[in-house]
């Protein structure tokens, strides 16, 4: 069953055809990688899923519902969470406060005027946030200001924040870009563990082929705004078209 169905999506930026007639299906509870050379339109495509961009034509259906024309927070409430290339967290807040926000958003929805209740008294939120931090091995960091964390920890916190919302689809745009090898391997392990323990679909954009081949079950190769092939990792590895368009230059 497909959780995400993309049909005939195209997007122009002025004279540039960033996406042209993209069709893509992401199967439920799989890890689906989208790869392709720089400027292929991967981020543009992802931005069309989360409400940051509206495609010029085509449709994007999430679990049978169209996401087009919806605001980012509405799409998130439908069950799509997104991890950014540079970790987007609440740097001025403590780690614990960072963690409580998605818990609140998950429980209370897009807006709740709860100005007269005490945050410390929200036992369910506190517990859930503590648990999520403990799962990431960050329990001891909960009173730390988020800006003081290492980059790897920020990334892990961001992923934990997304997971706390119990999303059905997790989108990651180059989660290991600029990371040291050790951090990259940690992220791979973390995502593998998430995949095993959660009822979740993951779509990942990634340049690092090590990450792509360790994690994904399906791979879509995008080049110049159109999908070239979609197949299993093993078949993609040997695909002549892919070598030509992408792997040739990446030297894998």
């Amino acid at each position, binding site marked *: 069953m497909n959780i995400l169905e993309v049909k005939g999506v195209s997007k122009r930026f002025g004279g540039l055809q960033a996406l042209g007639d993209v069709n893509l299906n992401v199967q439920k509870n799989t890890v689906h990688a989208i790869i392709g050379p720089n400027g292929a339109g991967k981020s543009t495509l992802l931005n069309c899923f989360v409400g940051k961009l509206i495609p010029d034509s085509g449709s994007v259906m999430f679990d049978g519902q169209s996401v087009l024309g919806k605001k980012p927070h509405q799409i998130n409430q439908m069950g799509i969470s997104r991890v950014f290339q540079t970790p*987007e967290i609440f740097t001025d*807040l403590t780690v614990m406060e960072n963690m409580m926000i998605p818990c609140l958003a998950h429980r209370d929805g897009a807006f709740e005027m709860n100005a007269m209740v*005490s945050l410390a008294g929200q036992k369910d939120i506190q517990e859930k946030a503590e648990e999520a931090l403990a799962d990431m091995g960050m329990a001891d960091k909960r009173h730390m200001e988020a800006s003081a964390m290492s980059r790897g920890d920020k990334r892990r916190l961001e992923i934990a924040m997304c997971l706390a919302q119990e999303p059905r689809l997790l989108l990651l745009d180059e989660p290991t870009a600029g990371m040291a090898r050790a951090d990259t391997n940690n992220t791979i392990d973390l995502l593998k563990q998430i995949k095993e323990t959660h009822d979740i679909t993951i779509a990942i954009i990634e340049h690092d082929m090590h990450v792509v081949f360790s994690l994904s079950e399906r791979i879509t190769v995008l080049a110049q705004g159109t999908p070239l092939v979609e197949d299993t990792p093993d078949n993609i590895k040997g695909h002549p078209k892919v070598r030509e368009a992408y792997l040739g230059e990446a030297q894998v």
Partner: protein
Amino acid sequence: MLGLDKKNSALLLIVIALTVFAPFLMNPFPQSSGLAQFNAGYPDLMQRFVIFGIFAIGFNILFGLTGYLSFGHAAFLGVGSYAAVWMFKLLSMNIVPAIVLSVIVAGLFSLLIGFISLRRSGIYFSILTLAFAQMSFALAYSVLTPLTNGETGLQVYNDDPQILLGNGPTVTHLFGFEMNSTSTLALGDWAFQFNMGYYVSAVMMVLAFYLSMRIFNSPFGLMLRAIKTNQTRLNYTGVSTRPYTLAAFVISGMYAGLAGGLMASMDPLAGAERMQWTASGEVVLMVILGGAGTLIGPILGAGFIKYFENIFSKINENVLHGWFAALPDGLENAIVWVLHFFVGKGWHLTLGLLFMLIVIFLPGGLVEGGQRIGRLFKRKKSGDDASNTKPAE
């Protein structure tokens, strides 16, 4: 206590104690001493401390938590004052209906202005609020004269309807307790003044402060702080930021309306100048000076600025000559010549310099200053402990 944790309960008790004993605390110098002019324990000045305290506490909920810098909040204070005076003209001099209406009207007005201004953020938001406030000022000053009495300002006349007045007091009162009644306690060379209007305003400020504490510590407050830090993440976390900022805007507008209503309750007048952009700018200064985003900062900032405005502006050249009379004439004249720029009408200069120093060296405002001093003492103490324990070992 009252849904607050220990630390905040202590802070609330401190604020209550300070406001209750303000007539003593503000009046430390004997009347016959040369320092008596630095006393601030006068009813109208103390009223201003707490009323502007309310204004700043409310402004801090918007600016301190969300980071949205409004340059138009004086407009809400102004409409609050007009609403209150209208209640005095139509009903009676009881301040309860006046204050209730001023909060409601300011709330509605801020809902309208906030709804439009919050379509933008950053500098564009600030400019929009400024534009709205200046439009409100122009409306009050000339266009809406039947409602505002234009340049003269709105006041209560003998032939006003005042349908509930009966035989009641003709000065503002709270169920018979007149706002301008003051009892004086003479103790030796001191005269401490206890004013009804001050205490009514002080109770309102304590309530306003308590509410702001509850907001700061609520999930709502956390969302507001998250807006200041990273709106993108918040949007992609499923939170709609606009209703939160609008709620914060309206709450701070209602605080401003309460301050305006109280101002009119102390002195039943309302003029358009209360809405001018300088008045909007003043509350920004108060909050930044005291410490934006802190609980107690706005109160400190409001007190600080009002103190300077009223005390430094009263010092003139004669006073300065009095202080330095003991010095040789030439030196005395030179010092007085330099200092006179900073006092009297020049008090803005002093305030400006202090503001610059604080923003540069204490970006967290007076609260940060207090924290640094506190830490210094702590370090000294623990340093002493360390040196004490070492020889024993």
